[in-house]
C-alpha cells in the first residue's frame, strides 16, 4: 500500500515539474484578442493646436528661510539685509559691563560671499544703519520695509574684501557696547540690529551665507582682553523688484523678487478614463531677456494650481523642469493625471526650484508667442481601453 501511495505522490510531483516546462508567453493569439488591445494615443499641443494661455505675476515672499543674504542693486532688483546678533556671554562679563569697566576695542562683521548677480566687476558698496524699530524675520517681506525705522547714520567703516569670498567691515564700537549692555541688563531696551542698505552706485547684487559673524574685541581697564564671536539669530533679505523688462509675449520667473508664471492648456479633449503614461512640458527660454547669477539651480518647478485667482497650489503635486541649452523640459504626468481624474484644471504655476535663493530672471516664450515652435508645448501619451 505504501508503495502505491508513493507512486501517486511521485506522479503528482512529476506533473508539477512538467507543468513548469513551457515557453514564455509570446504574441500567439493577439489577433484573437484584438478587442482587448489598449489604445495608445499621443497628443501634442504643437500638432493638435491645444488652446493655451500664460501670464505672470508678482508674489511677495518672506525670505527668512533663504540660505543666502542678498544685498545690492541690479537690473530690476534692489535688495537689502537686516540682521540681529545673538550675544550670549558669561556672568562675570555681564557684571563688568554693568559696572562700566568694559571697553569695546573693535567690532567686525565678517560675511562670506557665495553668489553674485549682475556684472561681477561692477561697483558695489553699502551702508550700515542701526535699526530703531522692532522687527522679526518671521514673515518679514519687502513690503515690511515701509514700516522699518533706522538711523540714517552709517555705523560701518572699513568695508573691505579680505579675499575673493570674505567681506569684513567695522561696526561702531559704542553701538556694539550698547548691545552688550542691553544683553546684560534687561532694563536697557534691547537692540534691533542693523540694516545693510545698498549704496546708490551699487550695480550688482551680492549674496552672503546667512551666517554672519560678529567679532568683538574687549578689555577691562587693562586687566584682561578677549575677543568674543557672535552670530545672528535673525537675518533676512528684503528684495524689492519692479516688473522685468520682458517682451509682452513672454512669461517670467524671478527668484526672491518673486515673479511667477501661470500656464494653462485646454485638456478637455482627453477622455475621463485615460491613464496618463507620460506628459512632457517644454518651455523655450528667451536668452536675450534672461539674467542668471554666478551660480543657480538649473531647473524650475511646475506646480499644480488649485486656484488660479488666488494662485494657491497643491504642494504635493509638483514636477521638475530641467534645462538643456535654451530649452526647459520636464515630466508633468502626475499633474495631467489629476486633471483627467476630474480635479479642476486651473493650470500650472511655474516657479523657481528654490524659492528665495538668488535673483535669477528667466524669461520664457509664452502662449502668445507668434512662433508656434517656441510656445510652451505639452506632449501627452495616454492609454484607454477599446
Amino acid at each position: 500500500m505504501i508503495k502505491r501511495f508513493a507512486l501517486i505522490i511521485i506522479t503528482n510531483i512529476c506533473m508539477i515539474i512538467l507543468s513548469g516546462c513551457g515557453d514564455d508567453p509570446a504574441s500567439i493569439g493577439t489577433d484573437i484578442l484584438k478587442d482587448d488591445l489598449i489604445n495608445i494615443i499621443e497628443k501634442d499641443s504643437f500638432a493638435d493646436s491645444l488652446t493655451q494661455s500664460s501670464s505672470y505675476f508678482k508674489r511677495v515672499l518672506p525670505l527668512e528661510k533663504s540660505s543666502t543674504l542678498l544685498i545690492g542693486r541690479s537690473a530690476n532688483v534692489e535688495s537689502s539685509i537686516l540682521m540681529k546678533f545673538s550675544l550670549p556671554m558669561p556672568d562675570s562679563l555681564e557684571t563688568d559691563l554693568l559696572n562700566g569697566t568694559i571697553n569695546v576695542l573693535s567690532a567686525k562683521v565678517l560675511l562670506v560671499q557665495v553668489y553674485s548677480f549682475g556684472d561681477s566687476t561692477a561697483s558695489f558698496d553699502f551702508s550700515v544703519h542701526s535699526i530703531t524699530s522692532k522687527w522679526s524675520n518671521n514673515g518679514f517681506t519687502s513690503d515690511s520695509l515701509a514700516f522699518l525705522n533706522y538711523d540714517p547714520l552709517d555705523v560701518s567703516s572699513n568695508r573691505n574684501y579680505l579675499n575673493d569670498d570674505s567681506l569684513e567691515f567695522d561696526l561702531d564700537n559704542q553701538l556694539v557696547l550698547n548691545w552688550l549692555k542691553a544683553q546684560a541688563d534687561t532694563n536697557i531696551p534691547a537692540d534691533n540690529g542693523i540694516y545693510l542698505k545698498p549704496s546708490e552706485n551699487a550695480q550688482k547684487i551680492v549674496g552672503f551665507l546667512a551666517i554672519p559673524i560678529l567679532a568683538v574685541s574687549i578689555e577691562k581697564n587693562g586687566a584682561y582682553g578677549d575677543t568674543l564671536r557672535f552670530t545672528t539669530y535673525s537675518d533676512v533679505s528684503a528684495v524689492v523688484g519692479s516688473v522685468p523688462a520682458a517682451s509682452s509675449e513672454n512669461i517670467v520667473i524671478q527668484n526672491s523678487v518673486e515673479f511667477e508664471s501661470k500656464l494653462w492648456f485646454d485638456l478637455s479633449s482627453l477622455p475621463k478614463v485615460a491613464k496618463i503614461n507620460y506628459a512632457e512640458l517644454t518651455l523655450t527660454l528667451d536668452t536675450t531677456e534672461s539674467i542668471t547669477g554666478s551660480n543657480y539651480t538649473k531647473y524650475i518647478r511646475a506646480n499644480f494650481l488649485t486656484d488660479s485667482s488666488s494662485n494657491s497650489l497643491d504642494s504635493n503635486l509638483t514636477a521638475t523642469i530641467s534645462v538643456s541649452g535654451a530649452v526647459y523640459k520636464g515630466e508633468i504626468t502626475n499633474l495631467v493625471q489629476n486633471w483627467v481624474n476630474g480635479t479642476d484644471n486651473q493650470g500650472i504655476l511655474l516657479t523657481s526650484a528654490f524659492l528665495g535663493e538668488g535673483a535669477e530672471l528667466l524669461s520664457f516664450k509664452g502662449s502668445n508667442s507668434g512662433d508656434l515652435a517656441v510656445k510652451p508645448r505639452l506632449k501627452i501619451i495616454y492609454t484607454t481601453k477599446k
Partner: protein
Amino acid sequence: MIIKFFFKILLALSVSVPILAQSNSAYTRKGIGDLVYSFSARRQGMGQLGVAVPDADFISTINPASWYIIKRTRAEFSLEYSGISASANSLNKFYSDANFNGVVFAFPISSLYGISGGFGIVPYSNVSYEVVENIEPPPSSVIGNYTLNLKGSGGISKIFVGTSYLLFGSFAAGASFDYYFGNINYTETIEFGRIGRLGSIFTKQYSPKGFGGTFGIISPDISGLRFGLSLNIISSLSTDTIAISASTLDTDTLSFGNVNMDIPYRLNAGLSYNLNKKFLFTLDYVFQPWSSYKLNGLTSNELVDLHKISTGFEFRPLQEPGSTFWEQIFFRLGFGFEKSQYYLNGENIQQVSVFGGFSIPLSIENTLDIGMQFATRGTTKSSLVKEDMVKLNIGLSLGEIWFIREEK
C-alpha cells in the same frame, strides 16, 4: 475505516490542491472559456462523456442517474497536466500547466430503490491565456517601444448535491442541484521601454454566481445496450463586474455593477453497450446552443452552437481470485470530434481528439486512474491559432463500505 478513508483523501488533496494554474489558449477569452466535460481520468480515457454508463465504482458528473448502481461510499479527485503547442504566423510556442480538477463523493442509500447521494466540486469552465507582444513604433514617435501583455484567468466552478432513483421498468433517474460560482479576470498591461513612461493596467473582473440543475435518465439494460440522456440547465447567473485602470500614480474604478450571465443549457445524449461485462462501448453527443449565451443581455457574434460527438471503449477484466496485477488493469480508448462554441474571423473552431487511459488497482475498490487526450484544435488560417494539445489526467477513485450494521 472512515478515518483511513479520509486519510487517503487528505493525502491526495495535499499533493493536488496547491496546483490551480491553467493552460494557455487565447480562444478561452471568448464566452466563459473552455468547457470542462469531465473531471475524471476515467472518462478522459474514453472520450470524456459516457452519459449512458452506470458504473458501480465511478461517479459521473454528467448524468446523476448513473449513481443508482453505486454500492460503496466513493470519493474521486484528479489532477490534470495540460501541454499546448500553439502555432500562428510562423511562430510556435509550447505552454504547460497543471490543474486540480475537482473532488466528488457519492454513497449508496438504498440499493433496492437505486437511491444514492452525491456531492462535490468540479470546474465548469476555464479561462487561461497570456499573450505578450512587443511593439516598435516609428523612431519619430514620442511613445517609443512598448510591450503589451494580455492575460486571462479564472473560470466557473460548480458545487453540486444530488441523488439517483430507480424508476419503474428499471429506468434510472437522477438529479443534482448545482451552485455555480467563479471569477474570470481579464488584464491588459502596457509597459514602455523608455524611462519616465508609466505603464498602465486595465482589469476587468466578472464574478458570476447562481443556481442550476442537472437531470438525467438511463434506460434499463437491454442485452447490454443502454441509452442515456441528461440535461444541464443554469439559471441566469448574477454577475458582479468591476473594471479598473491603474498606473503607478493611481487606481481608478472605471465601472462596476451587477449584470446577468446567461449560460445556455447543455443536452447530453448517449448509448452504451456492455459485452460480457468486460467490453464497454459508448457513443455520446453533446449540444449546447452558445449562440444564445448572453452577458448583460448581449449575445456574442463570436460564439455559435456547440456540437460534440465522442465514442469510447473500455476493457475491464473480470475480478477473479488469483489474478495478477497486470490482469487487473483496465484499458480505455476514445475518439472525439467537436465543433466548438468559438467562431472567429469567419471560422468555426473545431477540435479532434484521441483518448486513451488505464486504471491501476491499488486495492479492492481503489484505483489509480490515468487518462490521456491528444487533440488538435483551430487553424492558422484567418489569423487564428492552431493548437496541438496533450492532456494527462491522474485521478484517484476510492471506495469504502460505510454504514454497515454489525451483527450482534
